[in-house]
């Protein structure tokens, strides 16, 4: 009985069935999220994969303890990032499409010279919150996934920037007058209600781990980021357990910067 190819026993799931599932999922009402963090007040939603990316992106923007003065009223103490788990784009969007959907116009790369190719793109809505949780600033960003073999990279493009750059980021190159900031660290992603152990507190102080919140279980990842500002748009490459080198990331950034 095991000789039969059971995996292919059924015909492929029909498109109409998939559409019905997608439409149903898209129509689900929001439920109250439990993403409040004990000490950082960052609220997050998104798929598990997205959570890691968004959490890390938010961490990068906020840094460890440095927060910017809000442009509208109070200071930004936390950032909320929300994205659907269903991609907005499954093929690289056109400039016109982005102008229409986002009202900003980032540089678009379908395939990088080193082989990383566009897989999909998600919309991310970000809010900067003050100490009391009031929204003081909003941005809308794009999160593109690129893949080369099994290696994945995220290119996060934000219309503006919430908060200030982390002091841990250092300029590793300057290209066309733009500073490229790099940061690499081990990230410990933990559930929203996770309480830091004594060891965790030590690891946090020693800089062994940066803590991010919002996963279902504890996950440790090696993170690399490279970011820069160009024409008011904040670009950020994010590699989670990626094999890509720092130099290669710089070359990819140069390709984005010079793209038309």
């Amino acid at each position, binding site marked *: *009985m095991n000789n*039969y*190819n*059971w*995996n*292919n*026993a*059924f*015909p492929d*799931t*029909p498109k*109409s*069935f*998939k559409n*019905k*599932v997608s*439409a*149903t*999922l898209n129509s*689900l009402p*929001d*439920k109250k*999220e*439990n*993403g409040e963090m004990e000490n950082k007040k960052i609220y997050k*939603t*998104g*798929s*598990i994969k*997205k*959570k890691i990316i968004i959490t890390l992106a938010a961490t990068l923007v906020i840094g460890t303890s440095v927060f910017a003065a809000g442009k509208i009223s109070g200071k930004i103490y936390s950032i909320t990032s929300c994205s*659907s*788990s*269903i991609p907005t784009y499954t093929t690289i969007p056109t400039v016109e499409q982005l102008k229409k959907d986002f009202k900003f116009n980032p540089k678009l790369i379908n395939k990088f010279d080193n082989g990383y190719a566009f897989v999909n793109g998600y919309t991310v809505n970000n809010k900067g919150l003050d100490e009391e949780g009031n929204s003081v600033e909003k941005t809308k960003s794009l999160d593109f996934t690129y893949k080369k073999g099994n290696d994945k990279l995220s290119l996060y493009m934000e219309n503006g920037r919430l908060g200030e750059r982390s002091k841990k980021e250092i300029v590793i190159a300057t290209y066309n007058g733009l500073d490229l900031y790099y940061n690499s660290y081990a990230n410990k992603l933990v559930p929203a209600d996770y309480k830091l152990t004594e060891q965790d507190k030590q690891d946090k102080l020693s800089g062994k781990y940066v803590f991010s919140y919002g996963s*279902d279980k504890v996950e440790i990842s090696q993170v690399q980021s490279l970011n820069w500002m160009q024409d008011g748009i904040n670009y950020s490459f994010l590699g989670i357990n990626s094999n890509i080198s720092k130099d290669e990331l710089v070359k990819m950034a140069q390709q984005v910067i010079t793209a038309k």
Partner: protein
Amino acid sequence: MNKDTFIDDVLEVESTLYHVSKSILTHEQDCEDAVQEAILKAYNKLGTLKKEQYFKTWLVRILINECYSLKRKEYSQVPYEEYFESAKANDKENYNELYSAIQNLPERIRITIVLYYVEGYSVKEIKQILQIPTGTVKSRLAKGRNLLKIKLENMEAIYE
């Protein structure tokens, strides 16, 4: 479990949902209706799911209930002409022998076989999903295996 995790988890089992609904219902449209209803019910009852690790079996159980509920209405609601047209259209599809043999199994045996062999559930999990005793799962699997063997041998004989 939040909404986004729920969406991810449902998408992860999308093909299972199709296989399960197709094992009970004839028409594609009914499968779609059943899965829609099951997703909405699961989302509303999410608070009753005690452990997230059981999400998949829990959702499949809800879907099976929806399928049986629709099944009860299926024949009474579909006009004869529509039913025969749909059945004819299904006959034209060039399904593989194994699929045809599975679809010809008696319904209760079919779903058990699909859960075990196609979806890889253990006897214990199937017992929980179908809410039947372990012995019944095993006997249905044994009957299913015998029936499939006979059907597939007959098919080979026909094609030879």
